[in-house]
């Protein structure tokens, strides 16, 4: 297990955003986290990467207990996240944006800039290198999120809805990029609403509902799981669906 999250909880005031969530990720895989809006997916990422301290539970990354450690330290160990609401260094060029990530293990400016170019090529931003990050389109900004994280040479990367807001053809373009990242040996955890992406990319999926991990398994199976369907569509929906159109 490269990442093992066990019994993690977090509440904000009276609101329990994550409740006793657990998941285990094997090295070299692409797994995903799905669930309705407000289920606590982003919060769980923040708990794993040190942006929030869990009220309870443990996060073990690569054999090391990183529960409640600072994000910068966790990044140095090789686990980085992207942000659902993209967080570019606005006013800086795409090249400089990616170089911040590349500097993590590259003290020399020249090496970081070279790495930035290489990563830009990988995510399809090579012709945008000198553009201001703020001037990118939504699709460009999402790619930049991935590029910055990827430039740190992570062992595990947590991608938070990098396909949200993209049109179907843009989604089709991003999927092979993510596959290529995994082929380079990086473990990937995705949060994704775009089911097409979840189905075609991930081997295992956890379903989060109201802060709890309610089910997990191969995505195709989960799509037929009544518990999951209820979580998404509401109470009684699974049985109604089954009556109307029984799954083959």
């Amino acid at each position: 297990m490269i990442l093992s999250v066990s019994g993690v909880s977090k509440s904000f005031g009276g609101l329990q955003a994550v409740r006793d969530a657990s998941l285990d990720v094997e090295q070299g895989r692409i797994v995903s986290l799905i669930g309705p809006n407000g289920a606590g997916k982003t919060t769980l990422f923040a708990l794993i990467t040190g942006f929030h301290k869990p009220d309870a539970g443990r996060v073990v990354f690569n054999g090391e207990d990183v529960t409640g450690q600072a994000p910068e330290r966790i990044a140095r160990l090789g686990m980085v996240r992207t942000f659902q609401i993209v967080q570019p260094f606005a006013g800086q060029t795409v090249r400089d944006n990616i170089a911040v990530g590349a500097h993590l293990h590259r003290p020399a400016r020249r090496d970081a800039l070279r790495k930035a170019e290489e990563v830009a090529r990988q995510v399809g931003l090579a012709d945008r290198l000198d553009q201001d990050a703020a001037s990118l389109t939504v699709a460009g900004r999402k790619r930049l999120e991935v590029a910055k994280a990827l430039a740190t040479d992570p062992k595990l990367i947590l991608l938070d809805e990098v396909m949200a807001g993209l049109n179907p053809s843009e989604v089709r373009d991003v999927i092979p990029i993510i596959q290529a990242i995994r082929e380079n040996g990086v473990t990937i955890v995705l949060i994704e609403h775009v089911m097409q992406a979840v189905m075609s990319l991930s081997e295992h999926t956890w379903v989060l509902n109201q802060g709890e991990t309610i089910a997990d398994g191969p995505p195709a199976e989960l799509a037929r799981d009544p518990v999951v369907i209820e979580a998404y569509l509401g109470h009684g929906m699974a049985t109604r669906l089954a009556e109307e159109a029984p799954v083959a």
Partner: protein
Amino acid sequence: MKTLAILAVVFAALGVLPLFVVSDVWLNSLIAVLYAALLGQAWNILGGYGGQFSFGHAAFFGTGAYTVAVLQVQYGINPWIGLVAGAAAAGLVAAFVGALSFRYGLRGSYFALVTLAFAEVLRILSNSVPFTGAGVGILIPLDPGAENLQFAHKSGYFWMIWAMALAAFLAAWWLGHSRFGARLMALRDNEDAARALGVSALRIKLGGIVMSGVFSGLAGVFYAQHYLYLDPGLAYGPAISVESLLVPIVGGMGTLFGPLLGAAALHVLSEVTRDIFGDAPGISLAIYGALLIFIVMFLPHGLAGLGRISARRLIRARPA
């Protein structure tokens, strides 16, 4: 590399000016501009590149100034050593202010208030303890000679401030071409994103404030050796803090040459207003205030931004 070449040319040009300029009035102007540019660049390192707006750079400036003065007057220590000690002491005060504020995540106006409060505390302290000469101030005995860091001729002070300013500008250039600088600017532009990429906010901001404090302290050392007199209001008063931030804001925050542009522009402005209004008290502050409002409203990138806009217009205006 291109900016380094421009920097070299600018400072070389400034360096040969005294060979042609013989009048003390002009030399004084050059000294005043370089001194303001040093103060401004010191602030710019933390405020412009680091995005941490200090209202109390006098805390660092005054510490540099008092250190070199007190060491000479009370302990007979050579001002060359005092120079190093002054810069170091200013850096230490900066580290303390930084540790206190950044550790608790103070940002924006909270950080500004803490720095302001610090400068005021130091002003009051220097007003009450005996070894600074308290309210009477401290007078460095006149003893011209390079070994005493005092100069009979203005050109000596010119070279002193030229070298100090050059060091500050080289440091600022380095920020644009190093990992440390990239991280400092990343924190300025998006702290969460920077931390997600492994940037230690506390450590980098501390580095930024210490660097900034050291150069501010150097400006203080220069002031002490140039005027040979200090009192709490001069060393730790708000005027220094205001000048420190005004220069880069007018010239262009977070740009290498902004503080030099700002220093030159403010110098011209203050000469003009003095010609018009004489030395009427408060006039310069009122004009500074108006200027600050104007710049913030209409020229958010300062004079350096003005240059960039017109360069872009020229390029766009050129027929295809």
